């Protein structure tokens, strides 16, 4: 276990060149291949990308629940723990903790919690939601069952679940999708974590329910003073919730910027292409969309050089398809990994 002393104004979580790989029968997958960004206290960071870009695995790697024990991890994930009396404590590298050891378990749920896309399958179908929430409390606090139950009901009320006293004894299949997601949020937040990893929390929901859930997350974030990592493929959700955004493509963070800069002045050709390809409500109707050409390459067959070079309209032959660009800082808080803005700390494919 490696503990370092870092100034107290340091971020809550800092990812440094995070890498996660899996050996599957079909081949080796670099699911996350160099993700570096940090999450400040009280901030919402958006992580966007298309399916297979590694955004979910990034979150799961932070909690150390990505895949099985045979996944290969690299880089650092420095997390500032909370002391017993709620003040900032020591910094641990989450990746160096034993996979299911005592320390990571004391962080999971208590300091970093996670909610998922499918609230139906995220709850055990044969236990009441109350049972599952109470368990979450008792795992981290030495309270009696009755106390835990009272806390759980209180939390259900806070996620605006009507009839919380009765619904606490409901089974997941007895609730609607929106209610299940509320229960999920209640379970995740019941121990007042410092960081909430929200993995596509509204993708499976209807628009009006999505609006309710996003408003709820925003409100609870303010109340509990936590940070949120909002993982989504929906640029609209990011624009409305996040202060800073990391754009991922094939396991790499290609651009990191504050939300205004990202939407108004995107630098990476992928970010630009992504923004040009979505229809925007209220935009002059009829304007033609500009799609990114081609498909996301298979994770088993990553292109050489910059992962985006095969689809990039500005790709420079002999450069982009040879070397991997490193992150280049354009201005404070805005980094981009693209040769158009410099090479960054270039690493060649061969060197890996």
């Amino acid at each position, binding site marked *: 276990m490696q503990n370092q002393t870092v100034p107290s104004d340091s971020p809550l979580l800092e990812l440094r060149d995070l890498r996660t790989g899996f050996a599957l029968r079909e081949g080796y997958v670099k*699911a996350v291949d160099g993700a570096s960004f940090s999450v400040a206290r009280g901030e919402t960071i958006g992580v966007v990308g298309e399916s*297979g870009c590694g955004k*979910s695995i990034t979150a799961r790697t932070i909690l150390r629940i990505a895949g099985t024990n045979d996944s290969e991890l690299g880089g650092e994930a420095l997390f500032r723990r909370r002391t017993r009396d709620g003040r900032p404590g020591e910094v641990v590298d989450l990746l160096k903790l034993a996979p299911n050891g005592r320390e990571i378990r004391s962080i999971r749920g208590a300091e970093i919690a996670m909610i998922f896309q499918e609230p139906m399958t995220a709850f055990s179908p044969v236990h009441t939601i109350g049972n599952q929430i109470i368990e979450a409390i008792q795992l981290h606090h030495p309270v009696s069952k009755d106390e835990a139950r009272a806390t759980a009901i209180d939390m259900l009320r806070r996620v605006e679940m009507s009839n919380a006293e009765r619904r606490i004894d409901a089974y997941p299949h007895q609730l609607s999708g929106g209610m299940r997601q509320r229960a999920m949020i209640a379970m995740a937040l019941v121990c007042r974590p410092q960081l909430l990893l929200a993995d596509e929390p509204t993708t499976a929901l209807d628009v009006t329910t999505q609006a309710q859930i996003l408003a709820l997350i925003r409100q609870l974030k303010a109340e509990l003073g936590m940070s949120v990592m909002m993982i989504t493929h929906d640029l609209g959700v990011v624009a409305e919730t996040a202060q800073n955004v990391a754009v991922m493509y094939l396991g790499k963070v290609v651009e990191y910027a504050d939300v205004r800069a990202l939407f108004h002045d995107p630098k990476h050709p992928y970010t630009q292409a992504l923004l040009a390809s979505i229809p925007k409500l209220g935009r002059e109707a009829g304007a033609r969309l500009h799609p990114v050409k081609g498909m996301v*390459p*298979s994770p088993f067959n990553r292109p050489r050089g910059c992962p985006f070079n095969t689809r990039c309209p500005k790709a420079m032959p002999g450069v982009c398809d040879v070397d991997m660009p490193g992150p280049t800082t354009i201005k404070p808080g805005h980094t981009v990994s693209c040769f158009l803005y410099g090479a960054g700390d270039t690493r060649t494919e061969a060197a890996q």
Partner: protein
Amino acid sequence: MLRRILGRGQPVAAGVPAATAEPTQPLETETEKHDYAVASEWELMWYKFKRHRLALICGVVVLLLYVVAAFVEFIAPYNPEAQNPAAAYQAPTRVHFVDAEGNFHLQPFVYGTTSQRNPDTFELEFVEDTSVIHPLQLFVRGDSYRMWGLFDANLHLFGVEDPNVRLYLLGADRQGRDMFSRIVHGTRISMSIGLVGVVMSFVIGIVVGGISGYFGGTVDLVVQRIIEFIRSMPTIPLWLGLAAALPADWSILQIYFAITVILSLIGWTGLAQVVRGRALALREEDFIMAARLSGTSRTRIIVRHMVPSFMSHIIAALTLAVPEMIIAETALSFLGLGLRYPAISWGVLLQEAQNLRSIALAPWLLAPGAMVVIAVLALNFFGDGLRDAADPYKR
């Protein structure tokens, strides 16, 4: 799980990336991709099945068993009914490569046997006569038989030239009949009864399952109740009850078919459920609706869409149903309520092993049981492999 996380919309089958739509895209491994891209369902299943080494081996064993069943007269060295009182309960003949003088022979050989009664126990004891070597030979003339009822022959796959020397590879029974020849002959009935029974169950199953799935509603509900009812009954007593009612004067062939009918009367339920389950799942598939909306006729949808879609599953289910039938026939015959002498099946042969004293005296009487186990295991592993390969498109 990983696959689910990694790619929501992307097939990551067999390690080959999806082809690209844009003609401008470089296709580096074009040939390799091409093979996979144009591989039909059966080819994909074969790729998948091949990886299952044990299932492959067991498939070969099953094939061998059926080849044996087809050519029993030729493969068995003797007529299974040929009695030899002098050889009652004779132990398996030992096949030697090294003779009494310690010389090595490339061709395996056996010694003649003489029997004498032990003066103390009054049991027959067999002693090898090491003076003469009788080599084992291929394609030996011996007992004559009528092959498939078509022509007479007397050629056997292997044996000993000297008609006075009997080869008992798996020993002899009470009447001195060659167990090996009898087991080989038993293969025909035991292996085929499984096949015929499964075909019969399949016909019942596909008709009933099809009706159930096609009409749905109340018909389906009633059929489901019937299936549940049959499945909730203990089968062996039921089989026994039905088999006991077969007239004693029926011929082997009549009994044979009666037994298969009895076995399939109960065995069809599993297959009907497979058929129904697949039919219901298929009904939900968009491509069936797409075919309908394309103007494709109902018959063509059934023949070209539905049937091919569950063919592979049905074949796997059928394979897995064969061993159940084999066990059932063996059990019935073993209890004396199935096939009877003079029919020869593994179950009939095992009747000889009912008596503890005979087994103690001649453990080789259990050999037909070993064949049952081999056949059942081989079919189980083979069927398991088929089932795993049955859906190459599973995501």
